[in-house]
């Protein structure tokens, strides 16, 4: 258990890479969505809210299939991207990241939205009387004060992305070195006899990474909260 095999290292590296890109691209969108849901009212807000939460409640395979329809090379969005930019998602690491990002999105939005809603809006009003435009208020007041929630949401989404299985295998398939992340590798091993030890090792690695991420998020979040409120730590 002390030394990881090259194959295990490859799987871990791929999983971390997929989760990293998934989180990186969804973070700005999640912040925007969280802000819209927390601070604005618009017609159809309930529906937008519902659609954003769909990945939490529908079977992951449904999400994976929907992605295939939308982002496949013949898909409504995927076709345009492929023809104009040569970008293709299906059966590729990018596809795995997209699937993971979509599945983790609601968790991220939820955490950030809650922290934005918890901000005293009177502080934002005060900032505007001090001459700050709404974008500057957002950058200097809202965003820093929402930081604990943003951190928590990011780590949660990262952990969720590492564990993504159903949507990934449906949309991006199970290709070694391309889309075979930790859960997919474990699933593959369960299909072959006599791999109990190898499975156990990957399972423990998964748990260790997830636990590490949660602990890190808690520590960071406490530190940020302590800096902002002083007595909360």
């Amino acid at each position, binding site marked *: 258990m002390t030394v990881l095999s090259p194959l295990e290292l490859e799987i871990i590296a791929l999983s971390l890479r997929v989760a990293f890109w998934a989180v990186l691209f969804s973070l700005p969108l999640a912040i925007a969505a969280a802000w819209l849901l927390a601070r604005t009212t618009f017609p159809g807000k309930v529906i937008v809210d519902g659609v954003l939460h769909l990945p939490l409640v529908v079977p992951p395979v449904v999400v994976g299939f929907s992605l295939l329809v939308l982002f496949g090379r013949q898909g409504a969005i995927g076709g345009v991207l492929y023809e104009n930019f040569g970008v293709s998602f299906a059966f590729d690491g990018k596809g795995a990241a997209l699937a993971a990002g979509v599945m983790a999105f609601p968790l991220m939005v939820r955490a950030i939205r809650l922290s934005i809603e918890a901000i005293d809006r*009177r*502080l934002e*009003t*005060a900032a*505007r*009387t001090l*001459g700050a*435009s709404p974008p500057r208020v957002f950058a200097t007041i809202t965003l820093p*004060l929402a930081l604990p929630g943003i951190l928590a949401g990011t780590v949660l989404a990262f952990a969720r992305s590492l564990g993504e299985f159903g949507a990934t295998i449906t949309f991006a398939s199970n290709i070694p070195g391309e889309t075979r992340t930790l859960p997919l590798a474990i699933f593959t091993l369960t299909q072959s006899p006599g791999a109990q030890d190898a499975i156990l090792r990957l399972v423990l690695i998964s748990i260790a990474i997830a636990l590490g991420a949660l602990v890190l998020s808690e520590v960071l979040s406490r530190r940020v909260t302590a800096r902002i409120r002083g007595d909360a730590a």
Partner: protein
Amino acid sequence: MISVAVRKRDGDFVLDARFESGAGVTALFGVSGAGKTSIVNAIAGLVRPDWGRITVGDAVLFDSDMGVFLAPERRGVGYVFQEDRLFPHLDVRRNLRYGSRRRDGARDAPDFDAIVELLGLDRLLDRLPHRLSGGEKQRVAIGRAVLSHPRLLLMDEPLANLDAARRDEILPFLEKMCRDLAVPIIYVSHAIDEITRLADTLVVVDAGKTLAVGAVSEVTTRLDIAPLTDRRDAGTVLDGRIESHDSTYHLTTVSFPGGQLVVPAIGGIIGEKLRLRIQARDVAIATDTPSHISTLNCLPGVITDIGMPRHAHQDILVDVGMPILARLTLRSVADLGLAPGRQVTALIKSVAVDRNAAAAD
């Protein structure tokens, strides 16, 4: 020159405010719920009135006919709220500097170090807001608004959430600031003692309407306004100058238009301006000139007006060169046969010094 005329309906409450004032401190006075905060919020651009026009100097902040409604950040109006509203993630220095990016060539930017010194903040600069006491927080909030380079400063009961000790800690800073700053200030309060210490112009607000506008000394002696001020607090504000000091008896003579008052010795140099406050219940009336009496201040005058009876009392306005309010029992008014035009002597039992440059230091 500040000019405000706004109307706004909000459910059953109708705000209909109208006043003009100039440099110095303008106090908006009234009981809670009278609409004072609604008025300053309209000036700051935090609420949009249904109708009206708000100008500060040449700047039109709001004009419903012309469709002008400047966003709060474009008004150049500083605002000190009842709560400090400091940014919890920024230290005092960065809180103070938050608004200092606002620039306007027409006015000199306030000097950071000078404001920090004026408000006594030099030792707090590196602290986060949660490490400050309530009084310190409010001083930082005041400094932050001043340093945002406003053309007008709004202060909405900045002392209301502080206990008496913290209030007494901040009042001297406020007095100094009101004196030293070139920026006009609109100061909201329901405490008449704060107003007489700080304000030059008084606007009385009641049930959403501005009832009276004028110099503090004029408005506080208007009998139709008196019922709005706290019953126990009704009184006269006099602006005078130190005439002479009497070291033998520890007395100071203060002159005001039309007469002189003798008060227990106060600091200050001859000729210095100060503001005195005489509570109406500390003034007695005699119909002849009393000769053997301990009261030092016996001012001859003429009754100009008599207010409506309230409970056992009635307010009498006596012109002794300046109008002075006296609160007498209904029985005394009847027994002495007091009526407008009657020659009387006002006996002033005590005088409070409300604003004195030397005392503030």
